[in-house]
């Protein structure tokens, strides 16, 4: 592992690098170990490292001046992507300088740098004095020193980026459109601004989100390491593992917690509290017990210290026992600061389902990639369902064809360990729960009311008037805007 520091807009950036050779070695070692989560992660890293090196070799002729000595084999320094679809950044022994004074130019040459190319607007591409990893680190140091002398507009190491192509899927060609919507299909920016939000936080392990659902595959490679606590209020088992094809809770959990490189969750450094409260009957119905569910809610805030409760379910008449338990979570959870409770508005294209009707619960509806409420006739939507609406609706989030975790193996929604087509207000709800968790990760002292206010105030307004309406509430979740306001 090596660290390179350089300035961007006056801010010192730090990139952690690993050599391709080390990554391949590491993966081989870990592959024999028992920790499944680590094995998957190492396997992905190994694949990315191999791909990056192969991609560089393929471009060898074209990139020879940049690759000289530093990026030609598996000892190449690679910074692997943090975000899905991100670039693998390869360090080189070249650097870029912008608008250097004549004196600075002379100084750089005197330090052993050679001008490889002069570009537009006073840009210089310079080759460092030495090769290999030492050369990479040397140019980073020279770039830093050049900025610190104050005679350049910018100076930074030159990186080669290997971009990973995401194969189009039956779900469309942007399986992670909810995180970053490129507009194909849909509207550019009709997303929760996840990538920008991740420049602030991926969440903090001390922040816990309870997924109250039909169980969560807590052995899933992409979820296992996030699990802090689990409980089963259906069968009393020691884990919250679901029955058979009961994949709903696993899909909800992945939207927040997935630690897969390919299908990353929104707040995947937070901790997961998995609570099984229901089971499927195999005929499209859910069975649950009001008292057991009330106990599960109480356990979530009281014993498992959850900060956020995510409830991607609803319907039927209200339950006084559940309402009372939610009320306790909201007033007494988090040492009196209150848990944030998020619930799905429902998918019947009708009025809002209980418990999202409870005033202090954030009621979440679903949108399409075109930033409109999902309804049977919505642009970019699905035919068979509509996001419930009404005066209790607080906000909306993407809810059509969302990529997330699925029960491992052939059970669940897909044959694979991930599904690309999870949908409904069930998928929108954990996005808002992730937002609450991210806010608490940076400002844990905020009370429940303030977190709700921030999430609502910072939505992207979807009405022409900019006002709330019953179709989309206050607007669509914007994680980045919420975090910016939270940090003020």
């Amino acid at each position, binding site marked *: 592992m090596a660290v390179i520091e350089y300035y961007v807009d006056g801010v010192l950036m730090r990139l952690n690098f690993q050599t391709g050779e080390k990554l391949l070695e590491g993966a081989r070692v870990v592959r024999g170990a028992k920790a499944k989560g680590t094995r998957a992660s190492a396997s992905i890293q190994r694949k990315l490292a191999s791909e990056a090196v192969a991609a560089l070799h393929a471009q060898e002729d074209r990139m020879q001046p940049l690759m000289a000595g530093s990026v030609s084999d598996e000892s190449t320094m690679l910074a692997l992507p943090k975000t899905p679809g991100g670039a693998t950044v390869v360090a080189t022994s070249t650097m870029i300088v912008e608008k250097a004074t004549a004196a600075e130019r002379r100084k750089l040459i005197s330090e052993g740098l050679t001008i490889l190319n002069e570009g537009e607007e006073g840009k210089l591409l310079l080759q460092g004095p030495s090769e290999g990893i030492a050369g990479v680190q040397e140019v980073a140091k020279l770039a830093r020193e050049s900025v610190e002398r104050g005679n350049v507009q910018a100076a930074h190491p030159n990186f080669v980026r290997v971009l990973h192509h995401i194969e189009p899927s039956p779900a469309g060609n942007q399986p992670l459109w909810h995180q970053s919507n490129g507009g194909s299909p849909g509207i550019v920016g009709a997303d929760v601004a996840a990538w920008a939000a991740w420049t602030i936080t991926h969440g903090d392990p001390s922040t816990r989100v309870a997924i109250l659902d*039909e169980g969560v595959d807590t052995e899933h490679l992409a979820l296992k390491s996030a699990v802090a606590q689990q409980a089963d209020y*259906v069968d009393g088992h020691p884990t919250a593992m679901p029955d058979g094809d009961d*994949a*709903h809770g696993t*899909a909800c959990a992945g939207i927040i917690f997935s630690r897969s490189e390919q299908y990353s969750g929104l707040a995947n450094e937070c901790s997961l509290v998995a609570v099984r409260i229901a*089971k*499927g*009957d195999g*005929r*499209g*119905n*859910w*069975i*649950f*017990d*009001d*008292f*057991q569910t*009330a106990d599960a809610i109480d356990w979530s805030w009281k014993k498992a210290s959850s900060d956020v409760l995510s409830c*991607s*379910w*609803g*319907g*039927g*008449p*209200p*339950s*006084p*026992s559940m*309402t*009372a338990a939610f009320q306790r979570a909201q007033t007494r959870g988090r040492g009196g600061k209150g848990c944030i409770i998020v619930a*799905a508005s*429902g*998918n019947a294209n009708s009025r809002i389902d209980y418990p999202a009707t409870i005033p202090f619960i954030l009621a979440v509806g679903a949108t399409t990639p075109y930033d409109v409420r999902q309804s049977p006739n919505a642009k970019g939507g*699905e*035919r*068979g*369902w509509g996001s419930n609406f009404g005066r209790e609706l607080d906000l909306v989030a993407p809810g059509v064809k969302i990529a997330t975790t699925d029960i491992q193996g052939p059970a669940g*929604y897909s044959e694979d360990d991930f599904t690309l087509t*999870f*949908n*409904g*207000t*069930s998928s929108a709800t954990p996005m808002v729960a992730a937002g609450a968790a991210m806010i608490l990760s940076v400002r844990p002292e905020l009370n429940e009311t303030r977190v709700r206010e921030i999430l609502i105030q910072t939505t992207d307004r979807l009405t022409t008037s900019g006002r709330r309406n019953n179709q989309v509430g206050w607007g669509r979740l914007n994680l980045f805007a919420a975090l910016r306001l939270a940090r003020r």
Partner: protein
Amino acid sequence: MSQQENSTKNNAKTTSFYYADGKKIELNLVSDKIAVQADELQGDSVWSSARDTAESLMGGYSLIDVRSLEPVVVQKGLESGQAQPVYEAEGCLIVVLPEIRIEESRSPATVASVRKYLEDHCDEILVQELEQRFTLKLKSNRGDAALNMANEIVQQVAPEMAQARFIRLMKRPSILNPEG
């Protein structure tokens, strides 16, 4: 009128209700379904002809279709507490179990009123008290009696919360094959 007499009389009703947030929520009796303890379905019981229709619920209960049973068997089962009635509300099937929860944390006076009510009905119930919560088991083992008693407690004592135990069977939240 005792709770038992009250509930027996209510057996003829096709609707009932419970209180939530101070409002009456109507429950419609589902005439072709009842819930019985799963153990009762084993062996050569009066319910055996409905065994094929049984759907496992929670709390040890199974939902069965009564159409293969003699009406008198169903009636006797409901009256003896071997079977529980099934209601429908807002698209959700609800089985009411013979258990009630009462919660009160605001007022010692209301807690005292709850205790007084429970003492007055001690021949009908078994009471467990824990952390501002009373859990009542009805000796009659009848869910409809629990529903009525919970309503009576709301009307007479008005605690923070009083509810009979419901098991719900509702449409699952996921949307399968929406394009299919």
